[in-house]
């Protein structure tokens, strides 16, 4: 990777992390999603097609990683940008399964660094409360941006960009030293492929923990499951069926209630 590419990717890692300057909607929930991150890395490294192969695989693995704040399992932004970049740097000429295997390794490394830095920035932000309280006590409405944006973002920016630069630079240096792709034994790639497929279960489990509140609701989940396994419908078709059922439920329910209202 060239210096410019490294700087650009490090910058996007910061923008796609939790609580960056562009807001969580544009940052964490858009630039931080593996599908989008892979596309951006692909653009920067001028290989969109390979990047998207990796991006779709990582997106499936990390589908359930959606909560900021609560329990951040791993920093998605780090995992996907570094994962995709690693696959593209080290995986020249590999087929797609091996490429995905490489991405899983680097996403793991990136995710661990990201997790660590998230905890660091979370702790470093604490003293900012004192500054905010000081300004608040003085009634300085026009200075509230100093602790919330200026100082917090200095911490956030340094916590993301500096480690990202180090990881990406050492990756580039390592790729020039040896051909790692040929050094990785076949069984590792096989195991990583299996791991990737099983990891999707973690994402689904986390999503389920938000949605599945009453025991009987398991049948709804199973309905979606068999629509794919027995009826062999595509995801898009199931999504449309889901919307239809949700709309029928919503309006069907409100109509019966209205009727009851008229009776009484």
């Amino acid at each position, binding site marked *: 990777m060239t210096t410019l590419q490294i700087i650009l990717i490090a910058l996007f890692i910061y923008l796609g992390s939790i609580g960056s300057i562009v807001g969580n909607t544009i940052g964490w929930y858009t630039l931080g999603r593996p599908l989008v991150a892979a596309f951006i890395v692909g653009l920067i490294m001028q290989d969109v097609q390979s990047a998207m192969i990796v991006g779709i695989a990582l997106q499936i693995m990390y589908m359930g990683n959606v909560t900021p704040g609560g329990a951040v399992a791993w920093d998605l932004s780090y995992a996907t940008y570094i994962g995709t970049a690693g696959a593209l740097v080290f995986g020249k000429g590999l087929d797609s399964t091996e490429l995905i295997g490489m991405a899983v390794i680097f996403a793991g490394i990136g995710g661990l660094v990201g997790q660590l830095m998230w905890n660091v920035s979370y702790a470093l932000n604490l003293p900012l409360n004192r500054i905010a309280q000081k300004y608040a006590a003085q009634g300085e409405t026009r200075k509230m941006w100093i602790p919330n944006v200026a100082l917090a973002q200095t911490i956030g920016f340094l916590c993301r960009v500096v480690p990202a630069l180090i990881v990406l630079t050492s990756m580039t240096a390592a790729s020039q030293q040896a051909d790692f792709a040929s050094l990785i034994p076949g069984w590792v790639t096989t195991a990583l492929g299996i791991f990737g497929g099983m990891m999707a279960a*973690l994402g689904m489990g986390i999503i389920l923990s938000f949605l599945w509140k009453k025991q009987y609701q398991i049948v709804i989940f199973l309905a979606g499951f068999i629509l794919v396994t027995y009826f062999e419908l595509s995801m898009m078709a199931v999504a449309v069926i889901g919307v239809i059922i949700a709309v029928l439920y919503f309006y069907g329910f409100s109509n019966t209630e209205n009727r009851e209202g008229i009776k009484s």
Partner: protein
Amino acid sequence: MSEVTKKISPKTLKKSFLTWFFFNGCSQQAESMLGMAFGHAMSPVIDELYDTKEEKAEALQRNITLFNTEAQVGSICNGIVCGLEESKANKQCTSEVIDSVKVALIGPTSAIGDSLWVATIIPILLTICMSISQANQAISWMGAVLYMIVYPIGTFLLSWWLFRLGYRSGLTGMQSMMSSGRLDQLTNAMTILGLIVTGALTASYVSFPLPIQIVKDVFDASTGEILEGVVLFNADDMLNGIFPHLLPLLLTLGVYYLYAKKKWSPLKLMGVILVLALAVTGIGYLFGVYT
């Protein structure tokens, strides 16, 4: 009343919303969570409503205390608090009311935001965009671009609508919405949609192979030939014959149980999955499924 009633100007409301939309997560920490960001977003409103430094200080201190929500859907809280601060400036509301309302809003808005928007809309939208990307490799960028356009714009509009709704109808509006059961119905409807899609995602993307097979040379009595390398038993085929994708389903439910009921951390679960994957690989090599 001799005093003129105070009103927040549309411009200030917009400024407050945009401050929240862009900077809500900037200074997140364990002490006040999104408190500083909330205070920052409220500061233009406070500046306009109150005249003296003392009043401004009191209002600011009230608004930087602990606050947490799912920020995108939670913009309704900002709207409601803007409305309450306006009443307070007109002496129709006390600071105790504002404090208790804010704390009371944390629970429902986080729950609704997380389950409706974050855990339902995002996976569905990502799934649709992913299918577009998978359909044709030459235009695989289209899914990503579509997501980059649809998600932020859609969320911005929703967030802004909720903010204005909160300001306009205030707490009574939210209460009447919650008590009429409309919100419960919406939550239930979205949960149904979310669960169906999660089920389908599990079936499509989670994999858990069991690479056990027995291969033997078989003597075919009818022709008198020896057939080499016939698969006598394949665990995956057998299980899929009984119930397709049974193992991925069990794995997902197992992970859910450990995460939601036993409170295992995602990192720990990741480790367990890695060990399982290595075990499966080992078994596969042992039975000669992988070479």
